[in-house]
């Protein structure tokens, strides 16, 4: 089965429809969102489609090689950086349509007022290993 990466963003994705920042939700709405996320992960495992899921800190820096014998250059974090990845799921599913379907479900995580946040998620196919028979 092909593998897909479903990416969550802090910034950089188009604004979600229900765009209330989390600290403006009620504590109960925060709890409902967390419960949804937990259930989603559990369901992927039960479906046999789960590969990996990780949450990333907003912290980090850019790193660049600076020539032989020199330590790498680090810079940032840059507040103006457009794209900031918050986390991902790696799923192993029948195909693109199923990956998109799952991303759609995840995007409907509840937010302010208990309404879906309509968060934009990015789905990226993995390169597979070259097949043993194909050329």
């Amino acid at each position, binding site marked *: 089965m092909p593998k897909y990466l479903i990416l969550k963003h802090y910034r950089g994705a188009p604004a979600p429809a229900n765009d209330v920042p989390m*600290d403006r939700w009620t504590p109960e709405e925060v709890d409902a969102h*967390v419960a949804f996320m937990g259930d989603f992960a559990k369901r992927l495992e039960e479906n046999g489609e789960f590969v990996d899921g990780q949450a990333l800190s907003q*912290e980090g820096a850019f790193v660049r090689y600076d020539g032989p014998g020199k330590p790498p250059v680090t810079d940032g974090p840059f507040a103006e950086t457009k794209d900031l990845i918050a986390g991902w799921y790696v799923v192993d599913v029948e195909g693109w349509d199923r990956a998109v379907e799952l991303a759609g479900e995840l995007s409907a995580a509840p937010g302010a007022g208990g309404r879906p946040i309509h968060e934009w998620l990015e789905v990226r196919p993995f390169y597979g290993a070259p097949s043993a028979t194909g050329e």
Partner: protein
Amino acid sequence: MHEPVDAFDEVPLRELIPAVIGVLVRRGADFATAEDAVQDALVEAVRTFGETGVPRDPKGWLVTVAWRRFLDVVRSDTARQRREVAVDSEPERGTIEDVDDTLRIFFLCAHPALTPASAVALTLRAVAGLTTRQIAEAYLVPEATMAQRISRAKRTVSGEAFDRPGDLDTVRRVLYLVFNEGYTGDVDLAAEAIRLTRQLASLTNRERADPETDGLLALMLLHHARRPARTRADGTLVPLADQDRSLWDAGLVEEGVTILQAALARERRGEFQLQAAIAALHADARSAAETDWVQILAWYDELAAITDSPVVRLNRAVAVGEADGAQAGLAALREVDPELPRHRAVSAYLHEKSGDLATAARLYVEAAALATNLAERTHLTRQAARLNQV
């Protein structure tokens, strides 16, 4: 007819592992090969004993099987590499210093030449007797990665003299790291750390009292007692003040307090004893409101005097806030490096306590962005959300 094997308890067997490795090393085996051989013997023992029951002398059984396994490895190496290896083909029989051997394996696995992560991995394998797969699962890394980490660690310590006394401070720190890793996968690392610390304390207290290892054991027991109250069913954190104290394990609290009192009576105080004393005062309070913060602050002062740890000073600022009021707490916090993880979370808490809810909410949001795990991030976001409702 075989009895069902489900009930077979491998923990007593795993307790024998360091002593068995010690026997092989004394007979001339190198540590790395001996450790592999004993791990193989353990796997075989779990399989065999599950069917036939545990023999009268399980340690003798493990030594025999591990030694045979070791000789097989050495012989095939020798045949392959044409290398002479100076080991007796027949194990010598004699008195065996189990206790010393076990302690030496503790020291070797927490050798100061190892990085903390390597020392943890090696300790879990060669002292705790866990399989590489179990350790890998507990630390959420691929098994091959953990196998490499362990084999590199073994190479690092393989040249070290087995008979030299080791560094007990390092051993305690390694066990504390294992304890803090808590609970992921099917191995309960906190329980495993408690078991190892108990074993260590029983060894180090033989000739002369070792109050600091007892202090570490007490600290672990007192924290472990709170575990049932620490997380909700959905994995979110419950702060100490909000925990349902009836869920705390009274038996563990009592044991921790008893061990701690005996340790403190020795008047040789160390960091772990003082941390345990603070944990004991929390355990002693029937509600958060009844916490004896004045006494806790006194312990923090003593702790700050001996450790100079910025984390201790951060936690001390919380205690100052509780004992002497939010403004005093904020003043104490100004003496602490603001770059410290959780500095903003503490600041948010003290600002809320002082009545400055807008600043507190802003600081909770900042703290959430700096959190080092998801449960903490959610908790801090929830705190901001709560204040923003007001």
